[in-house]
């Protein structure tokens, strides 16, 4: 009911349809993958389901990180009930059970059902199939509670994201790729428990799920009180003059706003830092390792990603922070256009970081300056104009400084745009490189990018005009979601 009665529920039917198409696309993709996995692994040394079960840790790791876009913590839901006579612990139980029963925990069934239909039924019949799926569902429920645990810590400090990354990396490295591959064997054994309907699987499930449930309950209980009682102290802030930006006139003022917003709002800061660290990670991986060297296509793609990943992570919510004070901006002429320009220049300036880091692979002759500039301009002239289009669609405010709200929850349209921004360059580059080779592809990318970059006043004006055409709808959305 909460979702249905949300003011944004009835909005934008077209985007909802796109959202369903997006889900349908992934469903079909996973179903095909399930069938392909069966074909690939059938007839080998192991049964096909053993092979998939052996790689269970990969699926669970992927599932875990996908949940960051899909799942909130119950503390975010409980605040409205805080003053009701219902005990908080009871509410927590309800919300935690609801988390376990979420429909998202069935998402991987798009992959598992077609796979198991071929791989499991012929050996263990329908009962084996149902037991197999039940076993996997148990795993996703456990993963969901494990995610909640981590997410609560990540909400407190973004660096806690390193904990699950390290755990999954160590498990995969020492359990799968090292000898003996004990994790692979253990996962195969668990899979066998599933298909044989072994009661031990229930025992294992409860042995893991109950402690996780209880730890989560305790942690969430404390986090609710911590979050509710924590108010930002009225600390004195250092005045930030930034006189250097004054030479850019009104746009300079918005550049100052952009910088201050990033520095002083915890939600924006976290979002920016997450993107910035991702960008650094990709840059360093690209510059100082040789994992992408063997594949020219991947090398260029990762190079584009070094430049664009920060933009993809921050620009998908473009204007959502401004939703908090959109009325104040809208009563001044063409403020939004200056704001968009400032955002563009801010994001372009940030690309100097990957450009500087890319000097290392250039010196090591892993790539040329043309490649690096091609990727940079491709981002500023193709990827960014695409992401900036969201300024004319985003109409949901993100809270600037409150952890307890659903800040940062992506809408379907944002997910679609970020997915396209990630995969479209791959498609374009793949096509270009196949037709004209690596060097010419880099030059074409640079030409496309330069054109888009030079024409930025035009496409920003176009976005501004479209924003103004839908301004009342957008402002309604911002106000309703404040």
């Amino acid at each position, binding site marked *: 009911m909460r979702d249905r009665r949300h003011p944004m529920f009835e909005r934008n039917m077209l985007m909802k349809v796109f959202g369903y198409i997006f889900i349908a696309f992934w469903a079909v993709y996973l179903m095909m993958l399930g069938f392909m996995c069966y074909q690939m692994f059938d007839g080998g040394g192991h049964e096909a389901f053993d092979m998939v079960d052996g790689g269970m840790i990969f699926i669970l790791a992927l599932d875990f990180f996908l949940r960051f876009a899909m799942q909130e913590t119950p503390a975010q839901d409980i605040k409205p009930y805080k003053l009701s006579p219902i005990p908080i612990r009871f509410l927590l139980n309800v919300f935690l059970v609801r988390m376990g029963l979420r429909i998202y925990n069935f998402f991987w069934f798009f992959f598992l059902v077609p796979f198991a239909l071929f791989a499991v039924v012929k050996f263990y019949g329908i009962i084996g199939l149902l037991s197999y799926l039940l076993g996997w569902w148990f795993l996703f429920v456990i993963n969901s509670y494990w995610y909640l645990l981590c997410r609560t810590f990540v909400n407190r400090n973004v660096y806690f994201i390193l904990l699950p990354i390290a755990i999954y990396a160590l498990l995969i490295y020492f359990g799968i790729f090292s000898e003996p591959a004990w994790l692979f064997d253990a996962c195969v054994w668990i899979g066998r428990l599933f298909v044989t309907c072994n009661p031990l699987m229930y025992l294992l499930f409860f042995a893991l799920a109950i402690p996780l449930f209880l730890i989560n309950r305790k942690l969430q209980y404390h986090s609710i009180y911590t979050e509710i009682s924590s108010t*930002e102290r*009225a600390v*004195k802030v250092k005045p930030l003059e930034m006189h250097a930006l004054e030479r850019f006139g009104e746009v300079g003022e918005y550049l100052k*706003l952009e910088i201050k917003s990033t520095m002083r709002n915890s939600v924006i800061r976290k979002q920016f830092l997450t993107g910035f660290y991702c960008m650094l990670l990709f840059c360093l991986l690209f510059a100082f390792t040789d994992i992408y060297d063997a594949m020219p296509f991947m090398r260029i793609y990762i190079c584009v990603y070094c430049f664009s990943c920060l933009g993809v992570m921050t620009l998908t919510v473009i204007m959502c922070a401004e939703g908090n004070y*959109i009325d104040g901006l809208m009563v001044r*002429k063409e*403020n939004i256009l200056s704001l968009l320009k400032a955002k563009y220049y801010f994001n372009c300036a940030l690309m100097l970081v990957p450009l500087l880091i890319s000097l290392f692979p250039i010196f090591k002759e892993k790539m040329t300056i043309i490649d690096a500039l091609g990727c940079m301009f491709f981002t500023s002239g193709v990827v960014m104009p695409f992401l900036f289009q969201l300024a004319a669609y985003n109409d949901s405010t993100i809270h600037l400084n409150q952890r307890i709200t659903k800040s940062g929850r992506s809408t379907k349209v944002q997910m679609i745009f970020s997915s396209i921004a990630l995969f479209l360059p791959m498609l374009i580059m793949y096509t270009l490189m196949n037709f004209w080779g690596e060097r010419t592809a880099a030059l074409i990318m640079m030409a496309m990018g330069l054109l888009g970059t030079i024409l930025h006043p035009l496409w920003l004006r176009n976005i501004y005009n479209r924003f103004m055409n839908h301004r009342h709808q957008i402002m309604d959305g911002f106000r309703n979601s404040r």
Partner: protein
Amino acid sequence: MNITIENLTKHFGDKTALDIDRYDIHSGDIIGLLGNNGAGKTTLFRILLDLLHADSGTATIHGKLDDGTYVSYNTAQSEDWKHYTGAFVDTGFLIEYLTPEEYFSFIAKVNGISSETLAERLKPFDSFMNGEVVGRNILIRNLSMGNQQKVGIIGAMLSHPRVLILDEPFNFLDPSSQLAMKYLLESYNKETEATIIVSSHNLAHTFDICTRATLLEHGRILMDYNKDYASLTSDIEKYFKGNAF
């Protein structure tokens, strides 16, 4: 500047939020917009400021500029009126992560006001700010509601607008600040001959400062009297008493 409203309607579902056939506000007027909750005061402000889409009708700001040029702007079709208008409706006008000084400086810069002029324009607000707004290096979001209200009101007046729109400006203000607010509005009106529209639930303050009072009910204008109308106070008070008991 004058404001003319014609056939303006706004519905939220089956509820009529605004239904005004014609309403003329003359240059230099101080209008007090009165009405119970849901009467349509804020909706009228939002439509005037083009923050809300009207189902039908127009709001036009028109009049002579200092150089004698006559201008007329339909607020939904042009942005030029924004040069001559200042407004504060709610905290959605405030950039909460700035200090008041930074906010004033931002407004000044985007309105082409120099730092020296800004300092001069802030002087009349000294007693209104009462030492609690500037000079503390505290973000707007960490100020009390009253002080946030002051920042919003000052922000709306900084550019010396020809049309000033304030939604419930006396809210959250302590009695001293309310009196200072009344003085500021009256003197601003005298000095600049600006058109001022304020909505308020405080009848006494409204009657004190306004040259004209308009009473709204369910989006319709129920009473519209000039200050010199003898039974202005009693008629409006009678209306509110009638609604209360």
